[in-house]
């Protein structure tokens, strides 16, 4: 059995707004083994980004606050660490790639400086060494003539190139965990494939574990070993990718999979899940998905199902699954 790198347990991150409390993440649990890739899948607003920011402890506060749960990283609860210790982990042991490569690089610094910064912060190297390492990282990400590119500004680069820079920046200190928040959403399809391939390549090289936040099931199939499906701030299903695609248990997962257009079938209209994500401030009393669920029964509207293990490594929260929530 591979050992556990990260264990998120019953994590609750709430936002305290004037209008009320938004439980953006409400009792999320999952774990991640060393060197593994876990995909966190869900619609916008399902809490996947907030989960990842909670792991980094970068929730904008106020109004956000982590109100409960634990995040064990290498056996250490990140939520109990003082801010100073946490800074030593960020960018060093855990790093992050953001969704928008166009805005996640500081426009006034040359890209090499920005990669070097993490190295200077964590590895105690001087400016010159850091710059050489930055060039080396750029070379690893497949940027042509990296010794020139390192001295260019972000605005001189394309979106795909910038995302490579972000990857170089995130991996420069060889982190054990990389959180990628929709790293390919803003890129066009051909570049997407290249970036994913690059991430896999570097993952193998460095042995980094990846949490891949995405709403793109193609990315899940391509990249991940396991997947956690989120809905309304909760994990509703967790499974290996094979299991998830072969035999999705939760009706929401089935809906997501059915929404993928297939090349071999000709349809007039693409499948979609009826209705919209409910307002997190006024969640239904029962299962959060019940109002949109085609199979919902009366008990689904009455009580909320728990996430339970139905077979080894396979979890689901649905009343209708045998052994689930029962």
């Amino acid at each position: 059995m591979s050992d556990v790198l990260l264990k998120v347990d019953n994590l609750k991150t709430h936002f305290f707004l004037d209008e009320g409390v938004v439980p953006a993440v409400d009792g999320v649990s999952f774990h991640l083994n060393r060197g593994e890739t876990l995909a966190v899948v869900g619609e916008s607003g399902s809490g996947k980004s907030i989960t990842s920011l909670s792991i980094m402890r970068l929730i904008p506060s106020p109004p956000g606050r982590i109100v409960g749960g634990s995040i064990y990283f290498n056996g250490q609860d990140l939520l109990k660490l003082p801010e100073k210790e946490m800074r030593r982990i960020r960018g060093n042991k855990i790093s992050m790639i953001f969704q928008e490569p166009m805005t996640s690089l500081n426009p006034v610094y040359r890209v090499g400086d920005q990669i070097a910064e993490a190295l200077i912060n964590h590895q105690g190297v001087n400016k010159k060494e850091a710059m050489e390492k930055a060039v080396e990282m750029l070379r690893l990400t497949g940027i042509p003539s990296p010794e020139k590119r390192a001295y260019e500004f972000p605005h001189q680069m394309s979106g795909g190139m910038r995302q490579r820079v972000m990857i170089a920046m995130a991996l420069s200190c060889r982190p054990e965990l990389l959180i990628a928040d929709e790293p390919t959403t803003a890129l066009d399809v051909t570049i997407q494939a290249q970036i994913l391939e690059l991430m896999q390549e570097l993952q193998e090289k460095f042995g980094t574990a990846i949490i891949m936040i995405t709403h793109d099931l193609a990315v899940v199939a391509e990249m991940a070993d396991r997947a956690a499906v989120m809905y309304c701030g909760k994990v509703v299903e967790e499974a290996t990718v094979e299991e998830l695609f072969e035999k999705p248990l939760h009706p929401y997962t089935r809906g997501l999979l059915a929404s993928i257009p297939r090349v071999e079938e000709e349809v007039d209209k693409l499948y979609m899940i009826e209705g919209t994500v409910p307002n997190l401030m006024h969640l239904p009393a029962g299962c959060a998905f019940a109002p949109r669920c085609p199979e919902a029964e009366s008990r689904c509207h009455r009580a909320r199902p728990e996430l339970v293990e139905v077979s080894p490594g396979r979890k689901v929260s649905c009343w209708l699954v045998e052994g689930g929530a029962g």
Partner: protein
Amino acid sequence: MSETAKAAASEAVLDNIETYSPVREFWRRLRKNKLAMASLVFLVGLTLVAIFAPYIAPYDPIDGVMSDSLQKPSSEHWLGTDELGRDILSRIIFGARISLRVGLLAVAIALSVGTVLGSIAGYFGGRIDNIIMRFMDVMLSFPSLLLAIAFMAALGKGVENAVIAISIVTMPEYARIVRGSVLSVKENEYVQAARAIGNKDAAIIFKHIMPNVIAPIIVRGTLGISTAILETAALGFLGLGVQPPDAEWGTMLGAGRSYMFNAPHLVMFPGIAITLTVMAFNLLGDGLRDALDPRLKQ
């Protein structure tokens, strides 16, 4: 990679360090702006004139010849003489010393204090923001000249106190501008990214946010020098700033006011000096903004 290729690569790195100097890049872009360069030349010239005033000025700025009073510009007195027979050109040359010094000093003080307060307020938000900015609002709710006069009354007359008074009353405006810029810049993903690589708050504010708000600060700062020069003039005019017989452009303007109709050169030349200097600072500020901001680069 072979050893030679490695060596070549590291040499290329060193080459790049030299050719991509940000200072040179900035200078190259500033040089393209003709108006800004003309202003820069003018201001450098003015600074030199101020420094070497005793050697350049044709006459003593303080001792006049009464029999030569109120003369029109001539070959002897290029810009004429004032009511006490003092050479106006010499007084303007000596006045540059005071105006430049007061303008630069007042802005330097106001800008640094205002920038620190504004960035703290904007970055941390919440209660800290409220305390700092409400205090600034109180100061901004007084007419600035009136407030400056009040400070002068408390501190006493003189150039140094004028600098302090002007920097205190202009500081809230810098704080406001910096706070506003910080508020918008801190929402950028690169600030989040800077935090995600383990930076401290101070490093994020000064290394990642500050360079991105520098453009409006510089523009406001240069405009501020002109405001400070004008306010010094106003205080001088009211008899609170520079004390006679010291030459200062505002004081000269005030004193010449009563002779405006029969000897217009008394107000015209100090006025021109103020206008040119103020305009040069404004044009230079615009040029600096364009040159310092890599996002505006073509």
